């Protein structure tokens, strides 16, 4: 890596376009949060808010799990069950998973690419507040008997408006992140050398930016229909929204999880990927396979292309496991919470892809059964959510300046990993016996009741894991924990080249020139003297 004290500007360069505005020190307290455009504060707000929404979404899922154990409804009414069912999916994906990775990327991408700030800080701030308001509005809409199966037209209007605002907020945040990754990279950092989390946001975020407007389009049409007296349920409204977290869109949502795992495992196992470009390729391939979910209608489920894509989707998940396994084999396994969480996430991503691959096999007729729920839970809960927790434990020094407790991380791993297994595996068996999604009346009560009970227990473990993770994170956000050094993991990427947490302008006085995908590792190797270097390009 090469460094200079100052970066010479080419003649005629509009410096305002090169360096984004550096945030001044924010006022303290609530005023600071409300007026900040420091990407790090905005990122933290996104992360913490999304975790609080996860508690609600997980709780709703646990209630659904209990309700499914026996035939008939015990806890909820008929209409309420449908409302809680749709709320669970919307909160888990639109209010937790997507915003969590948006927040993490808002915080990390500028640091990883060596920029002094994010491209459009006010855009990111607007996106966060729009996300918060629309999330709260969504709950208000459900409380007002809105939602897809709601009885109140005004409540349903509010519901559709809140989802539309969420889609806009997501797009706005993504534009800021993507522009930063494309236009504000440090000298020498080609796209092939970008850190793998940033690359995963370029791929997953880019594809989400192209999918979210489709959702927005559907919502606009449904809003006009509902507002002027039409029946949105009659035009299959939930299906027009739920594709956003169905096969194959789930793979796009899981792409940042792959980036997280590929960042963490090589660092903590102390063995860089043999070839950085292999990580780039796996992430890119996974994104390509996930694109186009919005184009599918029921008749496409039998198409050769759909079946082929579902089967081939197993390959990038398998390749991910191979890359991570190779790092651990060469470097060794260090029992640290982020490593456990990241490896657990990779295993679940593979199981999710495998379940997705089996579900498209013609003749099995698994569409519409709880097999699909198992596949989504493996991918988005066991895979992406576990990766989100891995990211919290790994990047906590940067986010909050302190380490999260390793013991708490191990507990989160055990509860979430095995909770996800217990949650999803029984649904695979129930799916094979044709138990349909949203079914509350069971044909074969004996075995189905036992399996549904096991699944509900898995959900309960998962909720416990979420509570431990959220409590630990809130503690770190409040400054409790062991103070962290700038680079406690001896990591490879530029976010570790600054203090923990970083100053408002991100880097102190140095402009970095990158000559490989692991600039900090290069620095260390150079300091230690000549040694056989592993290929990273």
């Amino acid at each position, binding site marked *: *890596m*090469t*460094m*200079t004290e100052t*970066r*010479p*500007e*080419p003649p*005629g*360069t*509009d410096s*305002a*376009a*090169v360096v*984004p505005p550096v945030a001044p020190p924010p006022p303290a307290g609530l005023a600071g949060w409300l007026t900040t455009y420091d990407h790090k504060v905005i990122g933290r707000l996104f992360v913490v808010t999304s975790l609080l929404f996860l508690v609600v979404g997980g709780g709703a899922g646990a209630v659904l799990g209990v309700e499914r154990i026996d035939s008939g409804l015990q806890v909820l009414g008929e209409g309420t069950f449908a409302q809680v069912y749709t709320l669970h999916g919307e909160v888990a994906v639109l209010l937790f998973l997507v915003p969590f990775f948006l927040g993490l990327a808002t915080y990390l991408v500028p640091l990883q690419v060596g920029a002094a700030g994010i*491209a*459009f800080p006010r855009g990111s701030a607007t996106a966060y507040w729009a996300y918060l308001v629309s999330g709260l509005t969504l709950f208000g809409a459900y409380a007002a008997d809105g939602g897809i199966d709601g009885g109140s037209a005004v409540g349903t209007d509010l519901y559709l408006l809140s989802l539309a605002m969420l889609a806009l907020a997501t*797009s706005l945040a*993504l*534009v*800021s992140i*993507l*522009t930063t990754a*494309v*236009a*504000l990279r440090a*000298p020498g950092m080609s796209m092939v050398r970008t850190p793998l989390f940033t690359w995963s946001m370029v791929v997953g975020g880019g594809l989400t*930016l*192209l*999918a979210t*407007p*489709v959702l*927005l*389009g559907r919502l*606009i*049409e449904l809003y*006009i*229909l509902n*507002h*002027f*007296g*039409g029946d949105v349920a009659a035009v299959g409204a939930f299906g027009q929204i739920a594709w956003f977290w169905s096969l194959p869109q789930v793979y796009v949502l899981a792409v940042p999880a792959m980036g997280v795992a590929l960042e963490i495992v090589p660092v903590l196992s102390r063995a860089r990927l043999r070839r950085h470009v292999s990580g780039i390729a796996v992430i890119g391939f996974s994104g390509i396979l996930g694109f186009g979910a*919005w184009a599918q209608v029921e008749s496409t489920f039998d198409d050769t292309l759909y079946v082929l894509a579902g089967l081939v989707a197993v390959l990038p998940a398998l390749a991910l496991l191979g890359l991570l396994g190779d790092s651990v084999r060469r470097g060794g396994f260090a029992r640290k919470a982020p490593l456990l969480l990241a490896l657990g996430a990779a295993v679940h991503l593979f199981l999710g892809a495998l379940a997705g691959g089996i579900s498209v096999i013609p003749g099995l007729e698994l569409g519409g059964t709880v097999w699909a729920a198992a596949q989504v839970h493996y991918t988005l809960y066991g895979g992406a959510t576990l990766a989100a927790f891995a990211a919290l434990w790994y990047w906590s020094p940067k986010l909050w300046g302190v380490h999260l407790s390793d013991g708490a991380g191990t507990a989160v791993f055990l509860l979430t990993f095995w909770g996800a297994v217990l949650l999803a595996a029984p649904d695979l068996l129930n799916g094979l016996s044709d138990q349909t999604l949203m079914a509350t009346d069971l044909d074969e009560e004996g075995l189905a009741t036992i399996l549904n009970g096991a699944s509900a227990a898995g959900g309960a473990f998962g909720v416990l894991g979420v509570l431990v993770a959220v409590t630990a994170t809130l503690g770190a956000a409040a400054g409790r924990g062991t103070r962290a*050094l*700038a*680079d*406690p993991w*001896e990591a490879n990427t530029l976010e570790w*080249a600054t*203090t*923990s947490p970083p100053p408002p302008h991100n880097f*102190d006085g*140095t402009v*970095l*020139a990158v000559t490989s995908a692991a600039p*900090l590792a290069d*620095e*260390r190797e*150079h*300091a230690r003297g000549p040694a056989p270097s592993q290929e990273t390009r």
Partner: protein
Amino acid sequence: MTAPGTIAGSRAALPPAQAPGRRKVLLVGTLFVIAAGTVLIGALLAGYFSARDMVQAAGEPWPPEEVLLPNVPLFMGYLTLLMSSFTAQWAVSAITGRDRRQMYVAIGLTLLLGLAFVNALSFSWSQLGVAAESSRFATTMFAVTVTHLLVVIAAHLGFVVMGFRALGGQFSPDNREFVVSAAAFWHFSVAAGLVVWYCIWFLEGGP
């Protein structure tokens, strides 16, 4: 372990980093917005055609027989919008040539033509005489055209901001990224308008 806030400083003797090329952050961001906007308009049109296929498959007319399309004001409206694309690009050319007076005229004309389009579209809606809930045609048509109108209004906002900044003495041949970005978004709004005109108004019995 790396010390906090630093990177090992022993590389100072190495050649300095190559200076980065000019980075058009705003333009890159605008292109991402245009990409998302293109998908949005495409999705709405896909919804429109999907609804049309279903209605026609059921043996019903599309658009409903009572709907009379006001072809002349629609055509003139979209033609006006197309003309505004030329004046928007004129603003870019003017600042490239350091001609601020021409830039003011170009911005003013662009906004005027855009407002004329908004007026023509509103008039055409009133002439259609259909309520949004009256048919699938009306629902999907309003979804597409209202969304496109919002895109046009967003492009107006960009040009209004550009106008005030130009009047405040900003922009030069070396500092015109905002002008280029606003013009790019304006062109997108015009291109989207032409596609909407062709897919909805022309295909359904235009001039």
